[in-house]
């Protein structure tokens, strides 16, 4: 490669991610990265401001609109936070139904990302639709798994995007035992398909990489975390209460992004999402998911971001098994919801969106009016970690030409299934070399 001066790589708008963003990278003559920025230019949407003055019961419907790909995550974190503020715990079959709805979202979102957004990177296609010309059966399998996830969301939540059936305290209407039982055969078929997907993605070529960030994931007792839990687990071994989230995680604004950056108190970056969940909780996977993970060559921990596609495939298997378990044990609760009378106070809620931990905090007045809202979405938390990964990749692969290097950076970002609408609530690559 000839000696070069300034080198700039720029991706105009990052594809196969949800929302709008760009990437800007600058290398100096020595090949050192001077700058690696994710520029989130998704227009700010001001949800936290809109929530002030609304009723506490409105938060699940309003915050769902932050994200069309993971609306259930927003609804569930909002419900948990409101119930926490009001001193009510929703347990039993209502909590199980919430987990069932959330399984639908995991199945749908993971199947979409694995087959249509992420796999084309490994097989060299511009899109899942282009990939379908030579890998039609794989894409069709992905679409069928995704359809099952959407159907489960519609069954429990009314519709797949922005479900209508969720309310603080539970649901508007709960399904009958037979309505759920009728859906089990579709899930059993999806389980077979999801196991095939794990084998398929395990055969891809994975660039060497190691995420050295801290890992954070919800702790949900002896269960793999999805719909809430007792607090947050970290790879450093310490855990903290959900209510203490803002004492451990600090957000600050950076000029190049409409999404806020998050870091831990010591200034370290951290990662949430599949790698964090798997590395902290792989011992809690169900039988088929655990066996599939082993067969795919995963150890108890997985820190290679490129292999996150395997973890997502394994988590899809898990979500389907969980859905089947919940349906099998389901007994309709006497009432679709428990009463959550408002009281003045502060509540916190944290759940695992498919792309990572989602924290909500609300202050409400005695009559239930929201006085302050705080939403910390997964992609905003992962943004600093993604930028750090870009720096490492750029320095390790600086011999590559601009096109290849740009391609690799774009892949590195996509490994994290960023959800930009959420975080600005992502991606154009601008690479400058000097």
């Amino acid at each position, binding site marked *: 490669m000839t000696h070069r001066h300034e080198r700039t790589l720029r991706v*105009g708008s990052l*594809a196969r*991610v949800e929302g709008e963003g760009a990437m800007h990278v600058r290398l100096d003559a020595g090949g050192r990265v001077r700058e690696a920025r994710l520029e989130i230019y998704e227009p*700010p949407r001001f949800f936290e*401001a809109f929530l002030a003055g609304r009723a506490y019961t409105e938060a699940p419907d309003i915050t769902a*609109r932050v994200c069309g790909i993971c609306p259930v995550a927003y609804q569930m974190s909002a419900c948990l936070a409101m119930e926490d503020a009001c001193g009510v715990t929703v347990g039993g079959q209502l909590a199980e139904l919430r987990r069932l709805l959330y399984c639908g979202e995991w199945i749908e979102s993971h199947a979409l990302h694995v087959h249509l957004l992420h796999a084309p990177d490994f097989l060299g296609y511009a899109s899942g639709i282009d990939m*379908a010309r030579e890998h039609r059966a794989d894409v069709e399998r992905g679409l069928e798994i995704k359809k099952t996830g959407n159907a489960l969301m519609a069954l429990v939540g009314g519709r797949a995007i*922005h479900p209508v059936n969720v309310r603080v305290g539970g649901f508007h209407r709960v399904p009958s035992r037979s309505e759920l039982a009728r859906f089990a055969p579709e899930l059993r078929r999806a389980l077979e398909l999801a196991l095939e997907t794990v084998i398929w993605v395990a055969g891809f070529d994975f660039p060497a990489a190691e995420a050295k960030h801290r890992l954070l994931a919800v702790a949900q007792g002896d269960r793999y975390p999805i719909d809430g839990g007792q607090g947050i687990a970290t790879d450093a071994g310490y855990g903290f209460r959900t209510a203490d989230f803002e004492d451990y995680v600090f957000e600050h604004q950076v000029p190049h992004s409409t999404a806020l950056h998050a870091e831990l108190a010591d200034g370290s970056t951290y990662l949430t999402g599949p790698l964090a969940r798997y590395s902290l909780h792989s011992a809690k996977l169900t039988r088929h998911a655990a066996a599939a993970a082993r067969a795919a060559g995963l150890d108890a921990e997985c820190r290679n971001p490129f292999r996150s596609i395997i973890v997502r495939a394994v988590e899809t298997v898990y979500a389907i098994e969980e859905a089947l378990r919940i349906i099998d044990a389901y007994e309709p609760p006497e009432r679709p919801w428990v009463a959550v009378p408002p009281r003045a106070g502060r509540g916190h809620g944290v759940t695992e969106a498919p792309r990572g931990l989602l924290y909500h905090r609300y202050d409400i007045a005695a009559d239930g009016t929201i006085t302050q809202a705080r939403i910390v979405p997964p992609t905003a938390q992962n943004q600093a970690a993604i930028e750090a990964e870009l720096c490492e990749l750029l320095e390790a692969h600086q011999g590559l030409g601009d096109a290849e290097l740009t391609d690799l950076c774009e892949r590195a970002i996509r490994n994290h299934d960023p959800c930009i609408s959420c975080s600005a609530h992502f991606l154009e690559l601008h690479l400058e070399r000097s």
Partner: protein
Amino acid sequence: MTGKPRLAVFKFASCDGCQLTLLDCEDELLALADTLEIAHFTEATRTSLPGPYDLALVEGSITTPEDAERIERVRADSRFLVVLGACATAGGIQALRNFGDVRGFTETVYARPDYISTLEHSTAIADHVPVDFELRGCPIDRGQLLEVITAYLAGRKPRIPDRSVCYECKARGVVCVSVADGTPCLGPVTHAGCGAICPAFRRGCFGCFGPAREPNTPALVRLLREQGEAPEHIARVFRTFNAASPAFRAAAESVDDPDREVRS
């Protein structure tokens, strides 16, 4: 160039849910891709071909000076422009800013509001450029999206009923939650398309498809009052995902101003 009609999908301020609806057409997606050339669809493909496009689907509302310019270019590049969802047809949830002080909102969310460039109002696409068809919903309905695309391919008008959610309740055989349970419901004034899901789940319609044609909102406001709803709550139910649509905006304002309600 493939000779197939060229499809482009564009996003403005939104949650991505309406364009995701296209990817949610699991049974039809690959057939659609055989029929149309996907020239630009950032959420689905790295391929981005320049216009002109035959069919453009536009999601999201206009909230920044840059986007107000970008929509002009999209319009110039597109033969047939269809806008998708509450954001694109009525400003969306972002339009709640239209009723407040956007500087104050920026200061609420951002420590350095000066880094943020945004417009005072969130506006519908039709406020900026001529639009060929508007598909309602927050989110849009998958079946309706397929009908619009099919109609485009067949060269006919989309068959999208312009009536209220009440018709869909009756067609579905759902018991009226307002009459039977006294549950406040926006169904009579809300555009059909969802299939009356909320009443089917025993909750009142909350208007996510926006106003039906010629909605009798004064009558509904009176009914909501009779059902014991507080005025500020009635105003809020019209101020959600279609807050800036003229009919819902007027309904919310009429609650603040009872004289006006009598006059209308």
